[in-house]
């Protein structure tokens, strides 16, 4: 198998080119150990050639493991196949800056082909491809990602370059000073045998190694760099020399200035002090409402479709364990995965449109001032907003952030946002346990609900602030937060739809399987041993003899409650009772908390079954309000309710969130961290609420 790597700056239309070259049949995975997506697809023109889409980068110089990917792929280091050809996407409207990356690749001795994108948009500013090819010494093919024009010629150029046998020598356009040449020689002698022995790689190490978080740099190289003692003057020399060559040789090929008047006119509105913020609010409102409310019919349709399939299966299968396993475990489990798809598809539809249009960069620009107060960047705004609908698509949306550190910090606090699955729990608790009062014309019950939203906003912001200072890999480095504000462009629906498909498939395959397995395990925990406790009445005989349908249903609910009470899960609930008693919870709430791992709203139905009232929420509310302790005082006081809501606000009671964090970070480390810190936070907070409340006499 021959490999071709596709490199380029962000916003160069690289993804479009990749989609056109491969026809979009991608294998999507993660690079090991980092949150960077690896996409590979066969070249349509010659399917034995695989095209790797490298994440957009301005330079090969790296400071962290996720930035190191670009060099690994370009050179075929660390398990990556060595590419026969490196295709560099060069933006005709940003010629000099995008060619800076090409110079680095050529210095490393890679065989290059230039895909000149955005030439249609650059108009008179676009260079003549023949002249550019002459200056650069490699093939230059103009392509238009939007229409596919030039893609065939690019594929031909790639195939020709792959077939060319003559070796390629490194091309260096500048002369290092004697001091730099000596430093390069020192480091080059220490390069491991598995790496290409080149001056450029030695220079790469001189620029990157030092105060870095790179993975896989051999100790010998580190020692050699330390001995050479590079300073900031080295960066000045190298970077200025490359730009000097580009300014002298290439800048003149652009015969005119790029026309940005259209983008400037749009920006005058969208970035306006007043109107710009109003439009921003409206766009975010639409995005949020579509996730929070407008996705509801699709979610309900998924739920009723799976309920219908379950019913059908019940009529076909004989009564018993197998029937319950297929219907409640498997069909219900697949349903609990598919139910996320409406929100995932919608969110990535919006993200794709906004990114392609160029507005996502403006969102980061507009919101940066607010988000940086908690050591995050403006890019974190959309994922965190989405967290108020559901943490699963929100965690997936962190891919739009460039830096791994920002991505992980955002993922850590997203589960604290009040997602829509918490609402049924809050609704139940508030309706059942809190008295109705009005304060200033507002009911206390709705104030409580608003209060829970405010509480989650404050805790998530505070958590980001604390985690950014306390967790070592997340401590903010002094790196410039520079975002490019690209020209506005019409979104390419093909690419948007393709991305929605890729994201959904990756979710189903990697997170969905975990969610399904966990759902089945939870089902088994709350189902087996499926025996009534010793001394229980013979419910089945009583049901058969029940005088009315009402009495029959009541007996069935009592039977289901007794079966659940005797399950392994309920025994676990009893076991953890001492741990949750100081929070004001009894074992029944413990069982509900265990059941809620499947999805938070399952708390309500589990509590219904364990209290023997089935799935009727009205009776459950009454039941909770009237339940008494041995001494005749109410079992569930408003204080217990408050403690319970605080617990649900802070605990990571959701295995789907944990599964998707595992997929996005490529390991168990971060999901385990999220689960631990949130559980501790929830327990301590509920403990304080309940104990202080009790002391105050509530």
């Amino acid at each position, binding site marked *: 198998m021959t490999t071709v790597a596709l490199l380029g700056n962000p916003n160069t239309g690289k993804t479009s080119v990749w989609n056109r070259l491969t026809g979009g049949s991608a294998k999507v995975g993660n690079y090991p150990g980092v949150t960077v997506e690896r996409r590979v697809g066969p070249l349509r023109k010659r399917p034995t050639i695989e095209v790797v889409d490298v994440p957009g980068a301005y330079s090969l110089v790296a400071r962290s493991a996720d930035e190191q990917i670009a060099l690994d792929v370009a050179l075929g280091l660390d398990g990556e196949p060595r590419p026969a050809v490196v295709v560099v996407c060069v933006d005709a409207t940003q010629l000099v800056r995008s060619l800076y990356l090409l110079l680095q690749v050529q210095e490393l001795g890679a065989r290059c082909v230039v895909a000149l994108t955005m030439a249609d948009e650059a108009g008179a500013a676009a260079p003549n491809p023949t002249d550019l090819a002459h200056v650069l010494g490699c093939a230059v093919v103009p392509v238009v990602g939007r229409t596919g024009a030039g893609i065939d010629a690019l594929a031909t150029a790639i195939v020709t370059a792959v077939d060319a046998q003559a070796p390629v020598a490194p091309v260096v356009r500048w002369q290092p000073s004697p001091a730099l040449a000596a430093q390069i020689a020192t480091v080059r002698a220490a390069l491991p045998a598995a790496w290409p022995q080149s001056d450029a790689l030695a220079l790469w190490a001189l620029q990157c190694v030092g105060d870095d978080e790179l993975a896989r740099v051999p100790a010998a190289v580190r020692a050699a760099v330390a001995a050479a003692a590079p300073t900031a003057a080295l960066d*000045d020399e190298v970077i200025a020399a490359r730009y000097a060559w580009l300014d002298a040789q290439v800048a003149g090929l652009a015969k005119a200035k790029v026309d940005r008047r259209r983008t400037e006119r749009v920006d005058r509105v969208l970035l306006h002090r007043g109107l710009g913020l109003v439009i921003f609010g409206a766009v975010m409102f639409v995005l949020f409402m579509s996730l929070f409310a407008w996705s509801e019919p699709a979610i309900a349709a998924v739920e009723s479709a799976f309920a219908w399939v379950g019913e059908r299966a019940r009529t076909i299968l004989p009564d018993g364990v197998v029937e319950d396993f297929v219907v409640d475990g498997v069909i219900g489990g697949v349903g609990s995965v598919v139910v996320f798809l409406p929100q995932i598809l919608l969110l990535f539809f919006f993200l794709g449109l906004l990114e392609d249009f160029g507005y996502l960069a403006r969102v980061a620009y507009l919101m940066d*001032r607010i988000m940086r107060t908690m050591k995050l960047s403006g890019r974190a705004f959309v994922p965190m907003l989405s967290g108020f609908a559901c943490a699963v698509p929100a965690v997936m949306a962190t891919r739009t952030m460039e830096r791994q550190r920002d991505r992980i910090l955002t993922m850590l606090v997203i589960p604290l946002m009040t997602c829509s699955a918490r609402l049924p729990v809050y609704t139940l608790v508030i309706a059942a346990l809190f008295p109705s009062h009005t304060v200033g014309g507002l009911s206390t019950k709705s104030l409580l609900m608003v209060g829970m939203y405010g509480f989650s906003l404050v805790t998530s912001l505070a958590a980001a602030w604390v985690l950014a200072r306390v967790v070592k890999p997340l401590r903010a480095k002094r790196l410039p937060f520079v975002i490019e504000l690209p020209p506005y462009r019409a979104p390419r629906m093909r690419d948007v739809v393709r991305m929605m498909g890729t994201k959904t498939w990756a979710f189903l395959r990697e997170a969905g399987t975990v969610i399904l397995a966990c759902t089945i395990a939870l089902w088994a925990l709350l189902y087996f041993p499926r025996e009534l406790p010793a001394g229980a009445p013979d419910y089945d005989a009583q049901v058969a003899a029940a005088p009315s349908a009402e009495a029959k249903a009541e007996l069935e609910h009592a039977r289901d409650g007794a079966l659940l009470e005797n399950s392994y899960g309920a025994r676990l609930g009893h076991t953890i009772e001492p741990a949750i008693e100081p929070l004001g919870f009894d074992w029944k709430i413990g069982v509900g908390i265990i059941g809620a791992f499947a999805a938070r709203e399952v708390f309500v139905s589990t509590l219904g079954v364990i209290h023997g009232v089935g799935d009727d929420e009205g009776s459950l509310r009454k039941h909770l309000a009237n339940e008494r302790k041995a001494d005749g005082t109410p079992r569930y006081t408003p204080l217990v309710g408050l403690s319970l809501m605080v617990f649900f606000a802070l605990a990571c009671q959701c295995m789907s969130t944990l599964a998707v964090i595992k997929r996005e970070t490529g390991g168990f480390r971060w999901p385990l961290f999220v689960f631990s810190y949130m559980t501790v936070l929830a327990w301590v907070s509920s403990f304080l609420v309940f104990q202080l409340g009790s002391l105050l006499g509530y």
Partner: protein
Amino acid sequence: MLTLAEVERHAQVAITAVDGERGFRRRLLELGLVPGTAVAITNIAPLGDPLEIEVRGGRLSIRKDEAAQIRVRR
């Protein structure tokens, strides 16, 4: 000594040096903000920060405290 953070909107200036810690300034230099490059502030975000700057025909968003590390002359 003038920095980019102190320059008024739309005034054309030229970069003379980029200060700050090595990894920080290397990023800015590699984006083409090398000494001698013309730069101008084209816009200020509605909340007062960051700034939108024009450099080499492109637009970048940069925070004020970062712009204060870029020395310029008129």
